């Protein structure tokens, strides 16, 4: 049985990220003959001697013409141990929103730096965003190690600087790994390189194949956002009424006491259905249909939670938001908020602080949040929401902010999360717990 690892890559312009991803696809035989032929032809057209592997992944014409990556691209490769879904996110500052998109579901992120340049400000910013999103594990790929003559001390300096930064963001030391690689030459990408005898760790792919995929803690509280009420009203199932959804957290068993929020109705799980037959229990990530003992008025948007550890519905919430839109957010703005399967109106009561990415500190009470800003806000919602803290339950602690006028997604929201602790940052509410393990 092969498992699935979702990972994201991030780096600055010219760090060779597309080349690395191309190399992973190529060396895992995920690039097939006709794709390689097309790349070879295009490389010759551009006057290159060897196939430019980055052309495998730059999908849009304007990207190929400009030699840059604009949008998140999803890549798929597999080994006998694992299948991988890789979100390849662009390095341009103006497209940071895509890094957030690519990393929101990632179990691990690979950050690239150029060995000649070391850890850049953008690397530190990327790591801060990844910590805030709770991506559990980081890999620093120190690329172009061939261009510094495979020098150990250069690598060690970069690795130490990055690890110190990651630890200050809340990452445990054991969940940050630095690897010296050359995406172009293939050093330490799939197999360990003879050019770096001083490096004793795994090659990148080896690490990706074996790194433990953090399962939900077994005692995580049960959460099921109700997406759809299944009522066949057929001759065979005249009175069937099931609540369909994907389990966001925890495990549910027949007989469990649950509470339906925001109404606060209590009931007992009578059954867990799937088209393949009933289940005695089901865990996080599974799409199921839950039957309850009592005939209750439950609709799409409600949340079924374990009775013993249910969130308190509230019409005011504090959250960190990543602002993804060209138009600015100001206190007093009216927006839509999508949480689980529910969309409600919301009012921005206050912009508490903005995370200053240049200085890595908090700016209090800013006038607005603009594209790529990360800020802390207080929101009031038109109906009480049963939201969790993002760090205990990401799927029920996250939300979208949507523009009521044109429906665009304006921001990603994380309930209750503060800014990453940043050394001497004077952020009043930063608590340093950005990473959920």
């Amino acid at each position: 049985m092969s498992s699935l690892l979702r990972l994201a890559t991030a780096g600055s312009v010219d760090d060779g990220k597309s080349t690395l991803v191309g190399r992973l696809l190529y060396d895992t035989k995920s690039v097939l003959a006709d794709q390689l032929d097309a790349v070879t032809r295009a490389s010759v057209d551009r006057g290159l001697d060897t196939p430019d592997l980055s052309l495998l992944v730059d999908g849009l014409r304007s990207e190929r013409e400009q030699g840059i990556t604009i949008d998140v691209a999803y890549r798929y490769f597999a080994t006998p141990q694992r299948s991988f879904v890789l979100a390849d996110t662009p390095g341009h500052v103006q497209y940071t929103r895509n890094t957030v998109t690519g990393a929101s579901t990632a179990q691990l992120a690979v950050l690239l730096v150029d060995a000649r340049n070391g850890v850049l400000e953008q690397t530190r910013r990327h790591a801060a965003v990844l910590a805030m999103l709770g991506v559990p594990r980081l890999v620093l790929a120190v690329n172009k190690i061939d261009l510094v003559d495979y020098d150990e001390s250069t690598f060690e300096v970069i690795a130490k600087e990055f690890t110190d930064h990651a630890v200050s963001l809340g990452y445990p030391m054991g969940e940050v790994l630095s690897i010296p690689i050359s995406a172009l030459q293939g050093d330490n990408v799939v197999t360990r390189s003879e050019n770096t005898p001083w490096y004793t760790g795994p090659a990148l792919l080896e690490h990706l194949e074996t790194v433990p995929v953090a399962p939900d803690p077994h005692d995580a509280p049960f959460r099921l956002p109700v997406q759809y009420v299944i009522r066949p009203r057929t001759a065979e199932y005249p009175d069937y009424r099931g609540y369909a959804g994907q389990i966001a957290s925890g495990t549910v068993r027949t007989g469990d006491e649950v509470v339906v929020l925001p109404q606060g109705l209590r009931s007992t799980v009578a059954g867990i259905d799937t088209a393949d037959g009933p289940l005695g229990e089901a865990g996080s990530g599974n799409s199921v249909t839950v039957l309850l003992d009592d005939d209750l008025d439950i609709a799409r948007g409600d949340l079924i939670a374990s009775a013993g550890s249910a969130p308190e519905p509230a019409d005011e919430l504090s959250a960190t938001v990543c602002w993804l839109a060209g138009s600015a957010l100001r206190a007093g703005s009216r927006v839509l908020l999508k949480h689980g399967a529910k969309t409600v109106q919301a009012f921005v009561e206050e912009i508490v602080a903005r995370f200053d990415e240049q200085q890595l500190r908090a700016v209090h009470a800013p006038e607005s949040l603009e594209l790529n800003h990360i800020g802390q806000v207080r929101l009031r919602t038109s109906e009480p929401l049963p939201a969790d803290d993002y760090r205990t339950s990401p799927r029920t602690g996250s939300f979208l902010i949507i523009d009521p006028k044109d429906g665009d997604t304006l921001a990603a929201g994380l309930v209750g999360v503060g800014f990453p602790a940043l050394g001497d940052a004077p952020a009043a509410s930063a608590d340093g717990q950005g990473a959920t393990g």
Partner: protein
Amino acid sequence: MTAEHTVEPVAPGSGQDAAIDNLAALESEAIHIFREVAGEFDRPVILFSGGKDSTVLLHLAIKAFWPAPVPFPLLHVDTGHNFDEVIEFRDRVVEKYGLRLVVAKVQDWIDDGRLTERPDGTRNPLQTTPLLETIGEHGFDAVFGGGRRDEERARAKERIFSLRNAFGQWEPRRQRAELWNLYNGRHRPGEHVRVFPLSNWTEFDVWNYIAREKVDLPSIYFAHQREVYLRDGMWLTEGPWGGPRDGEDVHTKTVRYRTVGDGSCTGAVESTAATIEEVIAEVQASRLTERGATRADDRMSEAAMEDRKREGYF
């Protein structure tokens, strides 16, 4: 480079463990997507060609709403260049599950002059207009497609919920950020959303899933004898779209199809794979991606798919 994929097929029925396996994770994700659309849109429709991806799509929709019927119809854009086996299969599936089927016939658009036959006789590019006009006429606001991101470079960049403007066009620079499993289906009147529940599947996942779930497919996916002729390196078969030209010899070969499309530009591959297990073994060993091997229309330019998506094609 060596040819073989290094992936092991997933054993059937292995998805019950607490640690969810690859196919179970992909199935749960797709079911979640179907239910979101059913909850948020007024008039969804599943684009159904009878091909393996749209058949898997329908299988997932049936599972998502069981024991209730699928709460939306199917739409087939019929180029008129069909394989008989596929049309029979389509009608059998519709009957078996009591589905509603809307058919948009490219021939009707040609007959009344809204479309003109191309000099090369290929009708794949002609599907866009009937598709968009049928979406408009029926007021469909969400259109499910079987597209996968592993198929092609432009598709690799498309969201699962892909907003289309009033002209059905995809605008890559205006894509919405897509975070966690929170999908934003809001659209203005005249716009619609294309939805791709199989976005994160590979061709290999699709075949493994077909084997595990015992999904029924049209017979042309399995090895059979057929009279074919060679054009542009592809084995084409005679049909309503015409036959061999001068100098194109007809051979009888044992072949199968890896994709189902317009018969004038969908090529057969030589194969003796007669069962799903044999097809999986063949896919593992294949050196060509399925689109490159069998679709003439994708080979025209480096940006062929991107251009067609911008025009409103899937």
